[in-house]
């Protein structure tokens, strides 16, 4: 059981870690472009923010999987 729990924890870590990396990679480019665009025209802030937070969904999915793994799986 302890070994199973260990595997679940490792899985949760991988889920958050890799999705975090993915979101980070995506946001890196979006963020740089967004800051450039806002410097040119402050009115673009809203649109830039929408584009900026788009990739965050990736890490949220990872977080949800990790939460499910850590809190729900052991009780099943």
């Amino acid at each position, binding site marked *: 059981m302890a070994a199973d729990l260990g595997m679940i924890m490792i899985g949760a870590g991988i889920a958050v870690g890799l999705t975090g990396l993915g979101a980070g990679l995506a946001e890196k480019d979006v963020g740089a472009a967004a800051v450039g665009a806002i410097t040119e025209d402050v009115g673009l802030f809203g*649109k830039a*923010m929408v584009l900026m937070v788009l990739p965050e969904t990736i890490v949220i999915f990872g977080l949800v999987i990790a939460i499910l793994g850590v809190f729900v799986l052991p009780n099943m």
Partner: protein
Amino acid sequence: MSLPESMSRIVIVGSKSRLDEVTTALFEMGVFHLIDHTVDADEGFSIGSPRPYSAKASERLLALRAAEKDLGIRVKKVKDPPIAVNEVEKDIESGRVETIHADVIAAIDGRNEIDQRITELKALKDNLEKLSKLPIDLGFYRGYESLVVFVGSVKSDPSKALDAIEDIMYEVSFDKTEGVVAVFAKKDIKDKVSLALTENGYAEIPVPDIEGSPAEMLAKTDKDIEDSQAQLEAANAKIAELSEEYKSFIAASDEELSLKVQEGELPLRIATSEYSFVIDAWVPTKKLESAQKELEERMGGNIYMEVQETRGRSMHETEAQEERFQQTPTKCNNGKLGKRFEYAVSLVSIPKYQEIDPATLVSLFFPFFFGFMVGDLGYAIPFIVLGAYGMMKAKSKDFQSIGTVLFFGGIWAAIFGFFFFGEMLGMHFIGPETNTTVTWESLLGVKLPDWFQGLMVEASEGEYGVSKLHEVTMLLKLSVYMGCVHLFIAYVVGFMNGVRMHGFKEGYLEKGGWLFSFLGMVVFCYGLTEVLFCPDGISASMTTTTITILIVGAAILVLGVASCFPKEGAQAILELPGIVGNVLSYTRLAAIGMSKAGMALAFNYITFIMMWQTIGGIGGIIAGCVVFLIGHLMIWVLAILSAGLHGLRLQYVESMNKFFTGGGVLFAPLAIKRKHTKNFENIETEA
């Protein structure tokens, strides 16, 4: 959810000789959104030229702005009571702007002169300080026919080099790193001396054209500098005095002249012929009648007005018009709450005239989601206080809207935090202490009354308040359901927009199909999860109910895809996973709440169990309190960022993308906004 206000297009025609009166009337009434005339739009008409008074007003405004800059006056910050318009006008006509400009220029020039003198005196002082190291009067440095005089600073002692040259006299004062030297030599050995000095880092000091000993002159210069400083202070005080004296008039006349310039340049936006003018403008339909009446009263029968159309919301109607009449301005039509969220919508785009303004929807769901994600009474109270403060005091639109979100979000957070989650600062009110968590009951050592428990949701037998870290499945499901409702509303609004803009058939094909695809996908996925996650295995889960749900879901889905297909093609199928993605995106509501609960749990554990119970003593208690404060403050700040941004994102990306096109133009009527001036008649009536 409301459409922008209905607009009517009006055309006003009149004789050019009455243009000034009409202009004043249009500006004072403040309901006419001008439609710019384009070159060659109407035969025989061309764009007008500015009114004759405009050039003079511009010139005066320029002089005034220069004076503002010199005096450091910022018109926006002037808080003086307003001045009567006719007084300001009279003053401007009598040339007061020019007088002030001249006064200011004279004062500033005077100050600059003193400034310049001080700089020169300081340079002189610098030289005299160096020369005073030598025991030679200033008069001795000049007036020779056969001698050259070198006076300057040196970086090393030149005595040795100078001793080697015959027929010269010199004085040196040198201490450690630098010194001053004066050499008197015959003209024919000038080069020799020059070379000797250069080797010692010689730099010439210009000898001032005055007599007397340097020390005396230095004292005199010091006094001169002191006098000049006093004069400078007096000059600055004079400028400050001028600024104080004129700021009220400057602010008022700046406002008046800006309005004059604006009014004077109006003909540049309208059509004129040799003797007449034509003005096209949008007027909110509900103010149309009163506006027409007022204009008629003001102008008598001297102008001709005609209502051209009241623009409907159908795109066909708009597209049938001439290009310059197609863009209808948007005047948002929201209630008190919705109005506060118009700014958030405008960050993405201004709603089009034909579509539903999302501000009301945002005003309902954004604070609700924010509150659900925060979900803690302890964090909610500072949010409410800070939000109320921001709403009342903040001047900038950004802080106003942040304050609004914090206030209403805080109220939802308090409601969720107390009644649903039953917790404050990450600790439940009710319940026993375990080896990792504490509750308010165990912390305070009291038993809270039964009615208090009764206020909260009973999550399971004897457990009051939903635990964010235990009821994970339930919270995730709840988030998904909220998402379904939110998205359903968005799709319905999109469908309504489509029908209104393009008629039922086109609207259905464009947006209705998506509504059914969404509904079908939701029902089908619900059935699918019932089957796949059934604890008794897949075969046992295949009951009539689940199979019916699956079939109904699939049928609606096929209907939706089929409706979308003619317009969207393969996109209708490719977008289906996107619907699931959108719904699952709402799981962030639970996930962010949990991540905050997790952090709070960790800080509470460190404080109460590690520091207070295990370590104990005064040190433990103090260290615990520090961790508790810093930790919760951090969570609180993070809550603004994460709950705020993610709440907003759910509005912008998931919801508004389904129905909102944007790209409208804000209704900007010709208007007079007076702050520093006041109409004389108004003052009379008030008095």
